[in-house]
């Protein structure tokens, strides 16, 4: 790898690593899969943020989306566990080593069906990690069954119609106390990479619901999870700039109320240029109302839906020592003989 002195620092990040150092194995997903587009932006975000791959833990469950951690950051650790249980393994990993930058990639079946319970409890605990749902409304690996995020009335190739309402994971996430909730689209790399960088900066769970079309089973033009529909209907809630903590921040005066500047705990800034909607993502009630209305009207709104950078994450709640539990030496793990003697006396 590129631990050697860079010749062209221009193409290297602040750690001296090249974009190539953030790549993974070649994807085995279908050509044109939305997930691969998300993968590219993950690579870009981690590269530009200068996160060392060896500090990254890539967690996943089962499904097409859950395979994708193999396709980015090949020198990071990966854990492809069991269906719907990525939240549990991710929780355990960060408990053991709080220095890990944890990214979980899941799908709409993995999260909204079999893994819904674990998803909810991960959010309640505010586990520090990035949680991405690559949302395409279908089960790909098992060949096209509906998932809980499939839209009411949407039709499978075989003609079967979905007669159950879709779940909105973003509203659920906000409701359960998640403090970084965003919706994006695999076909919108610019917005996605900014949201991913914000997620890397966030302390606590950062949840991204990314509409990521399945080109094989759910890309019919009428499908609300298709490229065509999403491209035609995507509406930005704001234009997003992300200024990382290691770069100088320009102090530009914007017209009153036109920009929301969110300072993250690592010193990075998320700058949101409002659209005519005038949406402010630091207002939880406004976000929930917006999502409700968008659903009623069939709108596809993307951007940062809710952010509160100053929440207390689970590590802080547990008041853990700074050093990772995994590397504590024996003298910190096993109490001394006097302790055992003291306890034994209590039982005499």
């Amino acid at each position, binding site marked *: *790898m590129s*631990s050697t002195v860079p010749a062209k620092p221009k193409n290297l990040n602040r750690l001296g690593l090249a974009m190539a150092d953030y790549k993974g*194995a070649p994807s085995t997903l279908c050509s044109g899969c939305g997930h691969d587009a998300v993968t590219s932006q993950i690579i870009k975000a981690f590269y530009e943020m200068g996160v*060392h*791959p*060896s*500090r990254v*833990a890539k967690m996943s469950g089962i499904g097409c989306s859950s395979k994708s*951690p*193999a396709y980015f950051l*090949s*020198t*990071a*650790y*990966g*854990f*492809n*566990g*069991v269906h719907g*249980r990525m*939240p*549990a*393994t*991710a*929780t*355990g*990993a*960060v*408990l*053991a*080593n709080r*220095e*890990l930058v944890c990214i979980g990639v899941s799908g709409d079946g993995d999260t909204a069906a079999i893994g819904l*319970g*674990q998803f*909810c*409890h991960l959010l309640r*605990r505010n586990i520090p990690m990035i949680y991405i749902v690559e949302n395409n409304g279908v089960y790909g690996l098992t060949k096209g069954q509906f998932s809980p995020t499939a839209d009411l009335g949407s039709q499978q190739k075989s003609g079967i119609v979905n007669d159950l309402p879709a779940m909105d994971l973003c509203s659920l996430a906000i409701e359960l106390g998640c403090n970084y909730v965003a919706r994006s689209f695999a076909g919108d790399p610019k917005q996605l990479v900014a949201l991913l960088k914000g997620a890397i900066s966030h302390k606590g769970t950062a949840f991204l619901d990314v509409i990521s079309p399945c080109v094989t089973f759910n890309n019919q033009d009428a499908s609300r999870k298709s490229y065509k529909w999403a491209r035609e209907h995507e509406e930005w809630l704001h234009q997003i700039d992300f200024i990382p903590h290691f770069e100088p921040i320009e102090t530009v005066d914007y017209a009153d109320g036109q920009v929301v500047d969110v300072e993250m705990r690592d010193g990075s800034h998320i700058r949101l240029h409002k659209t005519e909607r005038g949406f402010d993502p630091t207002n939880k009630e406004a976000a929930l109302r917006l999502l409700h209305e968008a659903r009623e009207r069939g709108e596809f709104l993307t951007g940062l839906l809710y952010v509160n950078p100053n929440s207390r994450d689970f590590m802080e709640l*547990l*008041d*853990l*020592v*700074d050093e*990772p*539990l*995994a*590397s*504590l030496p*024996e003298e*910190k*793990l*096993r*109490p001394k*003989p006097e302790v*055992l*003697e003291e*306890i*034994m006396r209590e*039982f*005499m």
Partner: protein
Amino acid sequence: MDTTISEQKKDEVDQQQPRAVVNDFSIQVATVNGSGSQSSNNVLMRSIFQMGIPVSGKNLFPSNIAGLPTWFTIRASKYGYVGRKKEIDILVAMNPETAREDVESLEPGRVVVYEQKLNLSALRNDLVFYPIPFAELSGQIVQDIRLRKLIANMIYVGSLAALLDIDMAQVESAISKWFKNKQKAVDLNIRAARLGEEYVRENVTKRDPFRVEPMNQTVGKIIIDGNSACALGSMFGGVSVVTWYPITPSSSLCETLIEYMKRYRTDPETGKATYAIVQAEDELAALGMALGAGWAGARSMTATSGPGISLMAEFSGLAYFAEIPAVIFDVQRVGPSTGLPTRTSQGDITSLFYLSHGDTKHVVLFPANMAECFHFSIKAFDLAERLQQPIFVATDLDLGMNNWMADPFDYPDKPLDRGKVLSAEAIEKLGGFARYKDVDGDAIPYRTLPGTEHPLAAYFTRGSGHNEAAKYSERPEDYERTVNRLLKKHETAKTYVPQPMIYHVDGAEIGIIAYGSTDAAMAECRHQLFSEYGIESAYFRIRALPLTHHLREFVETHKRIYVVEQNRDGQMADLVKLEVGADAGKIRKVLHYKGIPIDARFVTDAIVEMERSDRR
């Protein structure tokens, strides 16, 4: 084992007093769940213990918070027998609902101490009845109805002390110990005990043979429950991530652990926790979190019971194939979820051994006493990291929640074994590593921990679809290599697990095999077999799965083998049969599955019956 010592003592004592029955009886207190009898029963047990007499205490309780009948049994045994005694010698009948049935179940000549108002003496004429006006007496101490009920319990402790010659000074000291710094409660309870004692001394003429005499068999010993012992073992085993879901009878293991970790694992310099304890949303998450933590290099554990084990099946398989350490305590109970959750069983043996899908075989440890609960817990964490796989520690409700006498635990004599973990420096020196390669010939590969700062350190973890370098593979030869190595690792595990305890007896034709809490009945059973029937028996105590070559040798050298356990199907007996092949015909099953702890008499009778039918 103290079998021989106890047996010599029995002979000595038996010659002293033909009539009186000294330091060898059981007391059963029948009360209503939630009536506060726990304090009084504990004081009663400790008073006898403090007189130097070996005791054990067992709580037979319903799945209920308040209102249903519950029984607490205290056994005093000068021989040091700590298993359940089949016969009840002294019944304390405090529960009107069960009193009649409780009295009717007694053997002739036994004693009934009871609330006078219950009018039990008319039920039988072959028992010794001591009516005592507990309700009335408690009214002399307190007026509050609820308190009166609680206080009545301590009054029977005093009454029993008078009847059995229990030293009142010990009763008072046990009360002080139980109520610790609550001086008001101490005073009140001492008054109650004294009142019960005085009443008996003034109004009751003793007509039964049971009494105690001071001994010196408990000096320096402790009384503890298995869940506490496992919790302590976990703390001294260096656990740092505990993820669990409440389930009877395992909950108190983690709850006790929480208390100890707060006290002794808070970093003195920063005041911060050197551990994380999470109450998970279910058992799937509990094990998932433990595996995430084990994968990332922390010592992790969960504790559950049968229904939780079922939910952990999928993750257990993943951990087996992906080779991730974690410790799983199974405090066994009667299944299923709406079974008898407060009753004991050894019914999870095969499900633990084969838990999950595909070709899985796990390592299971079977502690049989308090010292082993402590030391096997420590060992389990070492084994999990050494073997890189989940390690199950199987206890049961009887071990986990009942009171057992033990020597104070020895401090572990070996440092933590963190297994084969490569550092960044080691990777640099080696020029890389293959996660699933058998480098040392013991089938245990090397691993690195997430966060290791070397570009060649990381690997991708997935079930069994990988080659030696942890790259994705569905090639037939890669899968075969993976599972064959895991089988070889299972062989390696045999050299690491606690070896069986074997008690050879010259000339014994029969061999007895038992494990876990069943062991508590075995010394007594073997003594009964010999002293009453002249049957000599060798004894083999299984302490872990996989079974080792010792088992085959033991079975080979005895004519008939009795496997004693607490389940319906003889789950361990079947595993033994598989292991011994051609000798399987020698295996006989002695099965106790009533939900209450096994007793020696049951085993003795069963073995004698089978031995007799051989001769017919």
